[in-house]
């Protein structure tokens, strides 16, 4: 091989897995920004340190979000990435694309940016990686004209995302795509004009398999479920057994509530004990299906560790029917956001606020009743508050 000026990155062109270095080089061939990025990255590989300066606020007209400002700390060496901002483009719900749409995106980005992208960012946006400050507005204009809009960033609603749901999945208990799109359209203002105490994420999975990891990484997690009994096709159960599945071991013994019995011929489910974990259905998609009374559980608070530690979302509504126009859900979301907005400190996520002020206070504020499904177990410490109305007035 000829000697190159990116010997470290070149190593990553080898191997079977598709190489991002190939993409960098491909872009670098026609784009000077991409070329400088490639070389700055090579320097980082040598120095074992990033070469970007701290943040910087840039944007497009009328919006407070959707762009992440970025500047090189070695503009002397890499002048074409002196400014190298990212644009977050709201993906079509479910990440479905027609090729003509995708090609439009490519054309716009070749015109305005580095020609490099992330398909997609971990919140779900199509990330257009690197452009200069003076291209931001024109790039946005072109995007908008092509039918695209920016996603969220900063202290705003972030681009909601949803699992593939009813578009392809037999287990969808709610229309995750319609709901996600509906909420996205309803809350455009909250997404584009940061006015919350911090970021707010919504993710929607249409069943408890949670294929968008909603429970782990959204302030509001909507997870499909059902209320009635699992539908069983005993014929197909037998077919599974005949095909070699050890139903006792693989299904019944792994059911978390052990609420299934298999006698070699028939599978019995004690549905009142089932917690709708999806395991048995996952294993026998032809034989078992979620019930017919479908809806979703609403959970809140999920987030990454900063500042007070990572949280998984908490159940606040065990079951809600979810049908357009989703008014009950929206009213709940707004009550939650209002309370959060009023009470949170700057950079305090919803979960952290509930942690600080207490679930009791939160429930009262958003007008939700306490139910045992909200807890793994009741409290163990005796530090119980009483509302003034619980008390007997002094009778002396």
């Amino acid at each position, binding site marked *: 091989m000829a000697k190159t000026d990116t010997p*470290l990155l070149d190593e*990553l062109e080898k*191997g*079977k*897995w*598709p190489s*991002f270095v190939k*993409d960098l080089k491909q*872009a670098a061939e026609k784009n000077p920004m991409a070329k400088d*990025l490639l070389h700055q*990255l090579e320097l980082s*590989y040598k120095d074992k*340190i990033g*070469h*970007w300066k*701290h*943040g910087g606020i840039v944007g497009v*007209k009328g919006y407070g979000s959707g762009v992440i400002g970025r500047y090189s700390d070695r503009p002397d060496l890499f002048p074409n990435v002196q400014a190298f901002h990212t644009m977050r483009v*709201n993906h*079509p719900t479910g*990440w479905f*694309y*027609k*090729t003509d749409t*995708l*090609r439009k995106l*490519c054309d716009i980005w070749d015109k305005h940016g580095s*020609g*490099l*992208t992330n*398909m*997609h960012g*971990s919140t779900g946006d199509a990330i257009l*990686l690197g452009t200069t400050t003076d291209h931001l*507005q024109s790039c946005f204009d072109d995007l908008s*004209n092509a039918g695209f*809009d920016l996603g969220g960033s900063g202290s705003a609603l972030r681009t909601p995302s949803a*699992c593939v749901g*009813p*578009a*392809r999945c*037999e287990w969808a208990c709610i229309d995750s*795509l319609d709901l996600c799109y509906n909420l*996205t359209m309803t809350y*455009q203002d909250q997404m584009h004009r940061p006015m919350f105490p911090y970021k707010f994420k919504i993710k929607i999975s249409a069943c408890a*398999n949670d294929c968008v990891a909603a*429970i*782990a990484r959204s302030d509001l997690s909507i*997870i499909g479920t059902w209320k009635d009994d699992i539908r069983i096709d005993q014929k197909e159960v037998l077919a599974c057994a005949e095909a070699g599945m050890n139903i006792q071991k693989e299904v019944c013994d792994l*059911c*978390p509530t052990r609420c299934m019995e298999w006698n070699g011929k028939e599978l019995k489910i004690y549905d009142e004990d089932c917690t709708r*974990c*999806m*395991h048995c259905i996952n294993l026998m998609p032809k034989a078992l299906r979620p019930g017919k009374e479908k809806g979703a559980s609403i959970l809140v608070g999920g987030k990454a560790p*900063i*500042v007070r*530690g*990572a949280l998984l979302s908490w159940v606040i509504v065990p079951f809600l029917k979810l049908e357009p126009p989703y008014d009950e859900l929206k009213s709940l979301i707004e009550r939650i956001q209002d309370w959060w907005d009023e009470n949170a*400190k700057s*950079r305090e996520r919803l979960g952290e606020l509930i942690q600080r002020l207490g679930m009791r206070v939160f429930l009262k504020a958003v007008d939700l009743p306490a139910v045992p499904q909200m807890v793994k177990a009741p409290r163990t410490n005796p530090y119980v508050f009483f509302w003034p109305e619980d008390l007997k007035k002094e009778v002396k």
Partner: protein
Amino acid sequence: MAARTDIGPPNYKTMLPPVIERNYGNWLYHEILKPGVLMHVSGSGEALYSVRAGSPRLVSTDHIREICEIADKYCNGYLRFTSRHNIEFLLDDKDRVEPLIAELKERGYPVGGTGHAVTNVVHTQGWVHCHTPATDASGPVKALMDEIYDYFVTMNLPNHVRISLACCLNMCGAVHCSDIAILGIHRTVPKTDNTRVPNVCEIPSTVASCPTGAIRGDMKNKTLTVNEEKCMYCGNCYTVCPAMPIADPDNDGISIWVGGKVSNARSAPKFSKLAIPFLPNNPPRWPEVVNAVKNILEVYASHARKHERLGEWIERVGWERFFSLTGIPFTDQHIDDFDMATETFRTSAQFKWR
């Protein structure tokens, strides 16, 4: 033309292949025909074939055009991306599946990631675009996937394994609930530049940003001081105050976390737990990290029972056993010392010896 704002994303309905439009919400069951190939069958009798291909996620426009070309050829121009950044080619014609796969292989696209496999590694920006990384993102992922490639294109693991990487404690890769998480960490305190503090930092919010209360602010002199004993190098102060850079080429590196999950299947979602506190940044191929992940993956593969996720296996056999089987040393760093640390201390006389 003046840009319209707040138009929202393209309506997904306009992006759905006709077979999906026709059978939306009417799917009956699915089968994994082979690694990377899903067949979904509708109540109408129609079937949808999805062929899943791996992607580096950091892709050029030309690369995207190539994908489009393939989708045009086999899928009437319809495709999607998954929540873990794989590409899914959507076909309504079974006969085109094998030719598509053949072309994908030829072009170097791995086909797989379904069922009991390792799928794509969710990851972040690293040195490519972010300002707070303790390691790169795309590089370690590429090095790792080269090494464990076979687990992507086959389905022989006890259950699926979700590997994620985040380049700093902000955890944009949401690694905190992954079967195996690769997390960039700093190990030295921020180097406060008090000459810049007055201009670029808000003192109260910087003080408030520290999870362990390690920062003292002097409002009069407009300076910040870090108590070195209380700082655990999270970098959050740097996020809010540029005058507190924390990157350190000699001491930054990677930690490995295991046993998290997100699905509710069988057991409840779980956080990943610390397995290896530190491995050095060793670009371009991070051999220590790659080997560590591979070791964990293979110990799991050879010990867990069918359908057991990594964390479920560890909980069944015990953390003692995890450490002895993997040969990973247990240190005082594995013992939590943050807010709710005591919840993780063993409050019983039950334990194993090995």
